[in-house]
């Protein structure tokens, strides 16, 4: 008993440390930078980086020390007093979900930080970089470990703030740091973004989601009187009341709105592309570990709660339907755009949004099906495998950008002989993204999603399944396209020019290729044992859902199917579709971009239909431009109007010059008051009084 108690204490402490350590690092980094300025030589350049990596490692090891608890499907729930007036407590909740998530976040971030030591070498604002990176990781771990929604929201806002600072990191807005093609417009809106613009865009767009989220949180708080996740599961009286007033689904949909913003789902997806203005290590962090995964995590946190309510008779199916459909729409919307974009990082960004859509789809479908755990495991497994291959892809892309000095894939080409390691690793990770059969994690997780969607057995199963498979084909296509444009074909003029000028196109340094190499190898390595990894996760979540939420999973007897021995238990239809999608997408990609049997440019221009579609995708389905017109141009115009006509005209028209000069000489003060301005103020005042009395009378 005593050791158990002791074990509990140690466990709780390390769970706290998981998020406190990165924040601590962020706090001391500016001080270290100042100190090292006074010390000698090159130590100062690296001191902050070493501090950051050291703290990140300690935080991740704390997370790793919790793994035994996760494997037993146990949990640690530890609270300390916070705001007693409102009955709020701060706390950590380490259950299998948060422990696995914190490990994914921790290890991936750790590798990205190592990569950053190479990628950010020589940047003069390096202190600011490390500060915000650690702040970013700390906020994300805070989200993951929180035991209540309010504390989670603190981390949520921290992530938003850090992303703003990091996307705008190169605030001097140099041309090379922009994204988009200079001068290109869509519907009169410039499709060319500076880092500071992009940071602002991300901040405001995710804020829309945050506002919805806090509204949902408050709504639940008013009825439940608590923000605590455990408390919400414990006593479901609040849900009965809310459901009877028809507020349950709206409240959860509002909370999901937060996830839509952070995870860049339709219709708040557009910030993700411009977020590419940040340093590549930031992009990797946003896409693989911290920001966009926060939304998926939130859905994974709330989903079982809503499903458990459903089991208790309080149905909220619309919540899951909305999640599934938003995910499906995002998946196909962004995948189509990835097919045509010329910038390597943007292709990867579109692909992230699309893959997150898959995860959402799986988590949504889970709630609509008989066996919640199937979709749940599939979605979360895809999150893990995506974290590995996407981090690897981004870091590799960063290495290429670093060498080539251009973000356009047309400026690359033929790099496979010059960057052999990067070439190999990118193939490995890329195959993961495509879901190459049997050897990559991406295959198994995607197949699990297909199976979950196919077997969910509700009215939406078939359309969702069709979208999922079609998107998978597109994914394979654009991945091969990216590989083909970057590594195959002839060397581009840009590179020839660089070599003429004496630049040597070379492999990335050790500190850079090791991190993405590790992840690429893992993508294949875990893929080789993918089915049993998935089985393990499945079993874990069965226990977790049973223990924490009372969601019971029945052990189905697996009927033997036509599949060979090692694939028994898989759904043949899902498997077949997955293989077909891979083959078709990759095959088409090979024809155009690796074999180069058909010139894609000529092909698109040959036919008005293809041309129109190409343009439609390249212009981002016109969504971005429409959003700008409706939510930036129009409100500014309106605001200007309100200011000019409401505040200015009746009130101080012509005041700036005439009135001020008139008052300048005190003799003319009286005259100044008679310009009509003050009277008009007083008139409005009188009218206001009348207005108040009128409302009082009503």
């Amino acid at each position, binding site marked *: 008993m005593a050791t158990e108690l002791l074990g509990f204490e140690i466990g709780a402490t390390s769970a706290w440390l998981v998020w406190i350590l990165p924040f601590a690092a962020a706090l001391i980094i500016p001080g270290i930078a100042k100190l090292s300025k006074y010390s000698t030589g090159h130590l100062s350049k690296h001191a902050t980086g070493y501090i950051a990596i050291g703290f990140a490692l300690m935080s991740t090891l704390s997370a790793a020390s919790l793994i035994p608890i996760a494997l037993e499907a146990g949990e640690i729930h530890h609270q300390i*007093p*916070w*705001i*007693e*007036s409102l009955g709020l407590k701060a706390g950590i909740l380490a259950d299998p979900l948060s422990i696995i998530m914190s490990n994914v976040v921790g290890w991936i971030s750790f590798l990205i930080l190592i990569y950053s030591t190479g990628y950010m070498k020589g940047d003069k604002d390096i202190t600011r970089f490390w500060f915000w990176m650690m702040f970013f990781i700390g906020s994300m771990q805070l989200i993951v470990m929180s035991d209540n929604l309010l504390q989670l*929201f*603190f981390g949520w*806002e921290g992530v938003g*703030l850090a992303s*703003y600072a990091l996307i*705008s990191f190169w*605030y*001097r807005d140099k041309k090379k740091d922009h994204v988009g093609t200079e001068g290109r417009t869509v519907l009169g809106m410039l499709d060319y973004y500076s*880092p*500071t613009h992009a*940071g*602002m865009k991300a*901040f*405001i767009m995710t*804020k829309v989601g*945050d*506002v919805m989220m*806090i*509204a949902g949180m*408050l*709504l639940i*708080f*008013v009825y439940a009187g608590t923000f605590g996740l455990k408390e919400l599961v414990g006593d479901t009286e609040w849900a009965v009341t809310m459901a009877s007033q028809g507020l349950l689904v709206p409240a959860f949909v509002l909370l999901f709105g937060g996830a839509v913003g952070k995870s860049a789902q339709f219709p708040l997806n557009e910030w993700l592309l411009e977020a590419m203005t940040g340093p590549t290590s930031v992009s990797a962090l946003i896409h693989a570990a911290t920001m966009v995964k926060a939304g998926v995590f939130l859905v994974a946190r709330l989903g079982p709660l809503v499903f458990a309510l459903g089991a208790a008779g309080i149905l909220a199916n619309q919540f899951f339907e909305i999640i599934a459909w938003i995910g499906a729409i995002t998946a196909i919307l962004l995948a189509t755009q990835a097919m045509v974009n010329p910038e390597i990082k943007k292709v990867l960004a579109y692909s992230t949004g699309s893959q997150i859509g898959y995860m959402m789809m799986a988590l949504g479908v889970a709630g609509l099906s008989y066996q919640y755990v199937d979709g749940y495991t599939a979605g979360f497994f895809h999150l893990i495998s995506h974290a590995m291959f996407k981090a690897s892809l981004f870091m590799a892309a960063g290495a290429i950008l670093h060498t080539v000095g251009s973000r356009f894939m047309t400026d690359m080409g033929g790099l496979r002989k010059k960057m052999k390691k990067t070439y190999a690793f990118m193939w490995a990770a890329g195959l993961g993204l495509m879901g190459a059969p049997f050897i990559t994690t991406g295959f198994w997780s995607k197949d699990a999603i297909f199976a979950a969607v196919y077997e969910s057995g509700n009215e939406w199963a078939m359309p969702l399944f069709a979208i999922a498979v079609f998107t998978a084909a597109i994914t394979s296509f654009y991945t091969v396209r990216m590989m083909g444009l970057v590594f195959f074909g002839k060397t581009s003029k840009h590179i020839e020019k660089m070599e003429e000028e004496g630049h040597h196109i070379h492999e990335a340094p050790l500190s850079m290729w090791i991190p993405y190499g590790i992840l690429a190898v893992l993508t294949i390595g875990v893929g080789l044992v993918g089915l049993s990894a998935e089985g393990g996760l499945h079993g874990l979540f069965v226990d977790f859902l049973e223990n924490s939420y009372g969601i019971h999973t029945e052990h189905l007897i697996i009927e033997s199917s036509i599949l060979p021995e090692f694939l028994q238990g898989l759904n043949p239809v899902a498997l077949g579709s997955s293989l077909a999608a891979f083959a078709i997408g990759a095959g088409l990609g090979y024809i155009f971009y690796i074999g180069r049997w058909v010139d894609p440019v000529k092909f698109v221009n040959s036919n008005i239909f293809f041309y129109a579609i190409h343009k439609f995708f390249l212009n981002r389905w016109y969504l971005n431009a429409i959003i700008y017109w409706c939510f930036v141009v129009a409100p*500014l115009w*309106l*605001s*200007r109007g*309100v*200011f000019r006509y*409401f*505040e200015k005209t009746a009130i*101080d028209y012509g*005041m700036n010059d005439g*009135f*001020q*000069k008139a*008052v*300048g000489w*005190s003799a003319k003060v009286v005259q*100044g*008051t008679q310009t009509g301005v*003050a009277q008009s*103020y*007083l008139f*409005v*005042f009188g*009218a*206001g*009084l009348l*207005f*108040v*009395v009128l*409302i*009082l*009378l009503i």
Partner: protein
Amino acid sequence: MLEITSTPLVIMAILGTVGVLIPIISIARKEQGSNSFYAVIAFAALIVSIGYVGYQFINDNVAASALFSEDVLVDDAFGGFFAIAMLIVALFTTVGSFNYMRKHNSPAVYYSLILLATIGMVLVAYSTDLVMLFVAWELMSLPTYILVGFIKKNPSSNEAALKYFLFGALSSAIIVYGISIAYGLTGSTNIGEVIQGYSTLDPSFLPLALLSVGMFIAGFGFKMGLVPFHQWLPDTYEGAPPPIAALLAAGTKKVGFAAAIRIIVLGMVVLNLDWTLALGVLAVMTMTIGNIAAIMQKNLTRMLAYSSIAHAGYILIGLAVAPYSSLGLQGSLYHILNHAVMKGMAFIAIAGIVTTLAVTNLDKLQGLGRRMPITALALVISLFALAGVPPLAGFWSKLMLFGSALDAGSVVWWAPWLAIAGVLNSALSLAYYAWITRKMYFEGEREKRVKEPKSIIAIMIFSMIFLIGFGVYPEPVMQFVEFATPVLSLDLMP
């Protein structure tokens, strides 16, 4: 009878003596030009006053919040709460003026006027009699008219003072008129007795009673900067010396709320609660128009002026739902305290920028993060706190306000809409706060650091500790607020 050691009397004695003596000493010494000696004396007087209020609280000499009393003043927690908030603002103003007043004449008069206005601000919150309240109101207003126009040679300062005065005079007249109606109807000016009189009023006099309440709302609404009584506000803040803008935005504006809370119970009886919707409508109008107009501003002072209009709207939410949710008034008081610190700090930061760089135009603030790092950081923190970004203090008070509106939703249908409007407005306001941040940090190139005034830095550091400290651990402030908030429930009425 009030004891001679009761807080309002002691504060009046301390600040009044110093406030009157400073100019006399100055005249006796036949001084010309500037002198920071008086600032130090004023500072000391304010510190002693705060110390006394705190001492009274710690020794439990303060009664729980009572809205009514036989006397003209009551020494209760509600008054004490406002006294602390107002004295903090006065301190900010005084310390923030150290550097500013080095360049201007007659500092003795300047600091004396600040102290006198502070007495007025404190006494309004302690008043339980309409006449006392009005006297205190005028004691607060008159010095500020002069302070706004203190820079005699500056046309925009003069214009600001003039506009402010015209509006102040009108609103005072309206308040007096309201008081006279109340007196005519009930034969008393004591707030408690007026309410009793109203509750037994002959129905044929009801329209008159209604008019008096409408006049109170309009009269106080002027100081609170509620739309549509707000037009003077941006001009005045912009033209006034920046530390005085802090006094107006963070101080006198809040006194309007103190007076409104003391008096608002009148309306509750007379109008059978219908006034709450009026306040709700005013709240939404105020915050929306304030925020929309703020987006378009090119001048930092004006932008913050509109933002403080918007914040009056948030605070008004709490008043509007006060009868339906116990959190309402608590949220209002809490936000008043937070806003006093946040806005006071922001305006003092501007005072620092104006004294060192002489710019307030947003475009000229480029690279402020490198030129004045501490001031810029503090300004950013205050702006994010204003927007309600966790974990800063402003988040909690907004949470409480919006929560109270949702809570009241079970009684009145429109209350949740106030919360929705509030949340949307907060998000909207982030747009221009983030814009300022972007200007200060993400624009410009290699600016040199300039020397920041020490007095301003002191305020900045104090406020940052306040905002972050009470943001991460708000419990003590919340308990204080809970203690200071009068219980305003339907069955409390006499």
